[in-house]
C-alpha cells in the first residue's frame, strides 16, 4: 500500500513538473520565436516611427536602462538601509510589526496607484511635467517595499552563530553588518534585486502616468527632465494605439527583447553567487 502510494506520488511529481516545464519552455520559445528571427540592429537602436514601417525602439530601450538605473540608485540604498534597520535595530514592538505588515501589503497595491501618487507628487506638486526623473522616482517607490522586505528577510536568515562570533571578536555592529551579515545575505538580496529590476523593467502603468509615452526623439539623452518612454511602455503603446502597419511585429519584437534582457539580468546578477558556490563546492 505504502509502496503503491509512493510510486503514484513519484510519478505525479514527475508528470506535473515535466508538464509545467514543457509549458514554460513553450511559452518562452513562443515569445522569443515570434520576435527574435527578425531582430536587427536598426530595430534596436533606430528611432521609432509613427507612419512608416521599420520604426525602431532605440530611445525607448535606452530609457528603459537609464530609468531602471536611476530608480535603483534611489531604491537600493534606501531599501537596503531600511531593511537593515528592520532586521537589526528595530525594537520588537507592535508599531514595528505594523510597519512590516504595511510594507508587505504595499507590494500588492496595483502599480497604477504608485503612478497616481507620482503624478500628485512630481507633476502637480513639483510641476516637473512628465519626466525621466519623476518616472524613476515613482518606480523606486514601487520597488522600495520589495527591496526592504527582501533585505530584512535575508539578513534575518543569516545564522545567529555568525553574528555572535563576530561580536565576540570585538566587532562593532557596523563591522558585523558590513563584514558578516551583508556578505552572507548578499546572494538572497541580489536575487531579490534582480526580481525587482525585472519588475521595474516590465512596468508600464507607472511610467505612462509619470514619464509619458514620448521620448526626446534622440539617442543617449541623459537629461533627467526629458520625457521617458520605456520599452515596456512602447510595447503597450504599439499594442494598443499605434497606427503603423507593422505594429504587431514591433510588439512581438519588443516582447522578445524585453524577455531577453530580463534573462540577461537573471544571468548577470547571479554570476557572482554561482562562482562562489562553485568555489565552495570545489573546495568541499
Amino acid at each position, binding site marked *: 500500500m505504502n509502496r503503491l502510494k509512493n510510486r503514484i506520488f513519484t510519478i505525479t511529481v514527475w508528470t506535473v513538473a515535466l508538464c509545467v516545464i514543457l509549458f514554460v519552455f513553450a511559452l518562452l520559445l513562443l515569445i522569443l520565436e515570434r520576435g527574435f528571427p527578425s531582430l536587427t540592429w536598426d530595430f534596436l537602436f533606430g528611432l521609432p516611427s509613427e507612419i512608416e514601417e521599420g520604426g525602431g525602439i532605440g530611445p525607448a530601450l535606452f530609457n528603459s536602462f537609464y530609468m531602471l538605473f536611476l530608480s535603483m540608485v534611489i531604491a537600493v540604498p534606501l531599501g537596503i538601509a531600511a531593511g537593515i534597520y528592520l532586521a537589526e535595530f528595530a525594537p520588537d514592538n507592535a508599531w514595528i510589526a505594523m510597519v512590516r505588515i504595511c510594507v508587505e501589503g504595499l507590494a500588492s497595491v496595483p502599480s497604477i496607484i504608485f503612478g497616481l501618487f507620482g503624478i500628485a507628487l512630481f507633476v502637480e506638486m513639483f510641476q516637473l511635467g512628465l519626466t525621466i526623473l519623476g518616472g524613476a522616482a515613482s518606480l523606486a517607490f514601487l520597488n522600495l517595499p520589495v527591496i526592504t522586505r527582501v533585505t530584512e528577510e535575508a539578513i534575518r536568515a543569516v545564522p545567529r*552563530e555568525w553574528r555572535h562570533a563576530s561580536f*565576540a*571578536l570585538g*566587532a562593532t555592529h557596523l563591522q558585523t553588518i558590513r*563584514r558578516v551579515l551583508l556578505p552572507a545575505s548578499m546572494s538572497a538580496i541580489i536575487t531579490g534585486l534582480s526580481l525587482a529590476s525585472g519588475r521595474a523593467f516590465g512596468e508600464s502603468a507607472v511610467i505612462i502616468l509619470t514619464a509619458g509615452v514620448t521620448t526626446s526623439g534622440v539617442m543617449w539623452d541623459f537629461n533627467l527632465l526629458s520625457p521617458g518612454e520605456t520599452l515596456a511602455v512602447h510595447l503597450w503603446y504599439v499594442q494598443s494605439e499605434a497606427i503603423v502597419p507593422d505594429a504587431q511585429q514591433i510588439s512581438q519584437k519588443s516582447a522578445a527583447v524585453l524577455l531577453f534582457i530580463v534573462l540577461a539580468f537573471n544571468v548577470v546578477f547571479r554570476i557572482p553567487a554561482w562562482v562562489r558556490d562553485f568555489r*565552495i563546492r570545489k573546495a568541499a
Partner: protein
Amino acid sequence: MQALIEIERLNLFYGSFHALKNISMDIPEKAITAFIGPSGCGKSTLLRSLNRMNDMIPGTSTHGSIKIAGADIYGKDIDVEALRKNVGMVFQQPNPFPKSIYDNVAYGPRLHGITSRHKLDEIVESSLRGAALWNEVKDHLKRSALSLSGGQQQRLCIARALAVEPDVLLMDEATSALDPISTLKIEELAQELKAKYTIVMVTHNMHQAARVSNQTVFFLNGEVVEYAETEKLFSNPQDQRTEDYISGRFG
C-alpha cells in the same frame, strides 16, 4: 595564584527570570576554570556575562560587578568592543564564517585596524599554530572554512579567537558537538593554551572538567553550590548536591 576576574554579588535577570543569584567568585589567571552543572543552571549565562554577550539578549539586566584585571566591565565608560577583543570566546557549535580559512582568522585583526598583508600573514600563521591547526591547513588557506571537519572548524574558531590576542578565552561547551578524537585534541590544546591565557570553560561533561581544569565550579539553579580545586571537588565534595551530581544521581 593571582585572581584575574573578580565577580561580586552578581545578579542577572532575563525579564523577570532570576538566572544568576548573588554570585561571587575569583577566577585565577593562566589556569583553566570549569563551570559544571545541569542544563539551565546558569553556567553559560555567567560565562556570557564575562564578555557581555548577554547584552545582545533583550530584556537582560545585570546587577553587581565583574572586574577583569581591576576594570569593572559593567562600568560606565567601558568599551564593549575592546572588552570582547580581550575576552575571546569559542562557542558550542563550531561557527566559522562562510569565508576562506585565512579570512576567518584575519577577520578579528582586520576589525581592529590591521591592514598590512605581511602582518596579517604573520598573525594567521601564529594563531593557526597556536590552535594546532597550521600543519593541517597551511597548504590551502584559501579554501572555504566550511570545507573543514567539525573538529578542525572548532580549532579554527579557537585560532580566530587567538588572532586578536585576548587575555581570557571563554569556551562554551566547545567540544559537545565533536567526536572523541577531536574532543581530545581540543582538550590537549586547552592544556597548552593555559600557559598564556586564562581559560574559563563551560562543560556538560564532568569527566572533561576533571581531566582538564584546575578549578571547578558547580552551579545549580543559578547559584554557586561549590567552588574548589578540581581534584578536591571531585574526590571530596563538601556539599551533598555536588556529590549527587558528580556521582550521576541527577543532571
